[in-house]
């Protein structure tokens, strides 16, 4: 990790550190050399840590008052909203916190896509990140089931039913997941248990994610390897701490607007209707952050293939480091990739919109085209682009573009010498 050995100044500190090197760890974290040209898109790692801790703390408090029972869950949520001191505040932070968490994680993922942060030597960081993202989706989905409203119940029914698409054992798996022959009390209690467990799994993976990051160090907007520590880096504390703090505060202002002034805008009205197995809502839609994948699922006419397409859409990200054949990391120096990147962003937003619309007519057609393009991007465009694209000259160090503005040809290597 750190290049230099650390010795605590005090005797007690030294005694303790020899037995458990926590002070060495703290020293490593404060001194950690960070590229000085990181832009604000890099602040979302810290913001995500904040989101996770917020969800855990508010979630623990809610769990003290929530009752995981099909007959009492909805009522216990209303009890929290009405009679628990500041229960409304804690629940609205938790519910909107899930949305803010996903907003931040999408920015974090798309930052990585733009600047090629997933490429060698950071593949493990990226794959751990994808696992965290998958667990987040599982946790969010199960959390949405807990209030036991109409959308909870029917969302759970739709999603768990996807497993019935598996040949031969599908039906058995669904019954096993439900703990019965329909979504009912056993489903709710196990979802609550798992919803409580998953955040701590995520927490553990976040530690690994950061550990893996601290081996090669941060990528940066220029996307080149830098010497650490050097003129190109600053110590994490205070430089990055204050910058992350500033970005976090801006994020919290947006967060606060949702919590205090439109706490229900990101949810669905039907979830304030108590679950009723006899009445199906007109449109069953998942939360906004799952909509692109929901659109992919529905755009395939076959149930099994739809499920396969949806899962592939996520898992394809795990092999992204090997699908992208370009040696240049940052899109700044990849003029063609940069354009395809923004088309992908638009494609995912279109998929999200189509996921919220009924799967019929023009909506369905657009969703199908967008789904096809999504896979085309990863399976064809990215691998080919690495060979075909004429990239721009990459600077030798980040000091150059930081001081001189645009990369200067005089101090730039050309692509061939990078490829050596």
């Amino acid at each position, binding site marked *: 990790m750190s290049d230099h050995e650390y010795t605590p100044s005090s005797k007690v500190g030294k005694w303790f550190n020899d037995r458990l090197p926590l002070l060495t760890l703290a020293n490593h974290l404060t001194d950690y050399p960070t590229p000085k040209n990181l832009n604000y898109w890099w602040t979302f790692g810290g913001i995500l840590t904040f989101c996770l801790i917020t969800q855990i703390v508010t979630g623990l408090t809610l769990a003290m008052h929530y009752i995981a029972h099909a007959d009492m869950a909805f009522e216990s949520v*209303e009890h929290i*909203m009405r009679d628990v001191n500041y229960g409304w505040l804690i629940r609205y932070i938790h519910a909107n916190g899930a949305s803010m968490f996903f*907003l931040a994680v999408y920015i974090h993922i798309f930052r990585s896509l733009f600047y090629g942060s997933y490429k060698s030597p950071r593949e493990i960081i990226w794959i751990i990140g994808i696992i965290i993202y998958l667990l987040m989706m599982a946790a969010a989905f199960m959390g949405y089931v807990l209030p036991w409203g109409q959308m909870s119940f029917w969302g759970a029914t739709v999603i768990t039913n996807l497993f019935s698409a598996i040949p031969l054992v599908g039906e058995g798996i669904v019954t096993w997941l439900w703990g019965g022959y329909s979504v009912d009390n056993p489903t709710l209690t196990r979802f609550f248990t798992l919803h409580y467990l998953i955040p701590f799994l995520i927490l553990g993976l976040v530690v690994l994610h950061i550990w893996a990051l601290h081996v090669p160090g941060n990528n940066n907007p220029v996307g080149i390897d830098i010497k650490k520590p050097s003129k190109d880096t600053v110590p994490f504390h205070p430089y990055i701490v204050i*910058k992350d703090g500033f970005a976090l*505060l801006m994020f919290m202002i947006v967060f606060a607007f949702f919590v205090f*002034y439109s706490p229900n805008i990101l949810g669905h*009205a039907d979830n304030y209707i108590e679950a009723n197995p006899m009445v199906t809502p*007109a449109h069953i839609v998942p939360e906004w952050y799952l909509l692109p994948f929901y659109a992919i699922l529905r755009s395939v006419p076959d149930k099994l293939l739809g499920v396969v397409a949806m899962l592939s859409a996520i898992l394809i990200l795990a092999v992204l480091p090997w699908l992208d054949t370009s040696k240049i990391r940052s899109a700044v120096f990849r003029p063609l990739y940069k354009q395809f990147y923004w088309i992908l962003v638009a494609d995912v*937003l279109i998929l999200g919109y189509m996921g919220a619309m009924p799967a019929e007519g023009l909506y369905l057609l657009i969703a199908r085209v967008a789904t096809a393009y999504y896979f085309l991007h990863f399976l064809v465009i990215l691998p080919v682009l690495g060979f075909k694209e004429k990239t721009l000259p990459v600077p030798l160090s980040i000091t150059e573009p930081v001081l001189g503005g645009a990369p200067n040809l005089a101090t730039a290597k050309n692509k061939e010498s990078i490829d050596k």
Partner: protein
Amino acid sequence: MINKVKNLIKLLSILAFISLASTNANSAETAKLLKTDWSFKGLFGKFDRGALQRGYQVYTEVCASCHSMKYVSYRNLGEKGGPEFSEAEVKAIAASFEVTDGPNADGEMFTRPGKPSDKFVLPYENVKAAQAANGGAYPPDMSVLVKARGGGVDYIYSLLQGYEEAPSGITLDEGVHYNKYMYGNKIRMAAPLSDDLVEYGDGTKASVEQMSKDVTTFLMWAAEPHLESRHQMGFKAIVYLIILTILVYFSMKKIWSRVESEV
């Protein structure tokens, strides 16, 4: 700096897209809803105390004969941020209802006058009884009704005024009514309000429009009893965050001035 502004614009457009997509997904596909000025909207939005008290009167004299409000207690009527009836009024309101309690020492259920700590008395014993009395349709519980309908308060406000003669070509079954704001335009509930249906104690004229606005305000409070403290706390929290953000911004500038780099 220009880059930063661009980035900010991108972020904001993503946010705008998300909220647009979610509102689109929630809106009902019927006539455009009626709009009115709601005192509880906006940064400093508060309930109109008079409207809440009148709305309670409409609820209890009209709606409550079919619609329950099972998560609200009589004591809530006297709490800050609500209709704020006086303690004596709350006690009198509660006592005007018969509450089933028990079992007593003999194992018998008994009735007694309501207390402020009681939940609103239900109009029917259970859902089946409610359905039997209403031609098979269950009058939904009103505790969180405005949050449970796309369009929220505007929808309820419009629905109450949306009864019309069915246009030619639409046939209605017995006990079904035409309402231009209802999803599918067919509703089991007969027009619940008519001019001067209730007599307001404060002299306000009880037009259908006035009663719709009052009772919808009351329903909003029933669904969000802490709305006023939420708005007050929200304003303080956001002002605090903005000031802190500005201070941190200048500290950041100071710290980063030691390195030749821009933040």
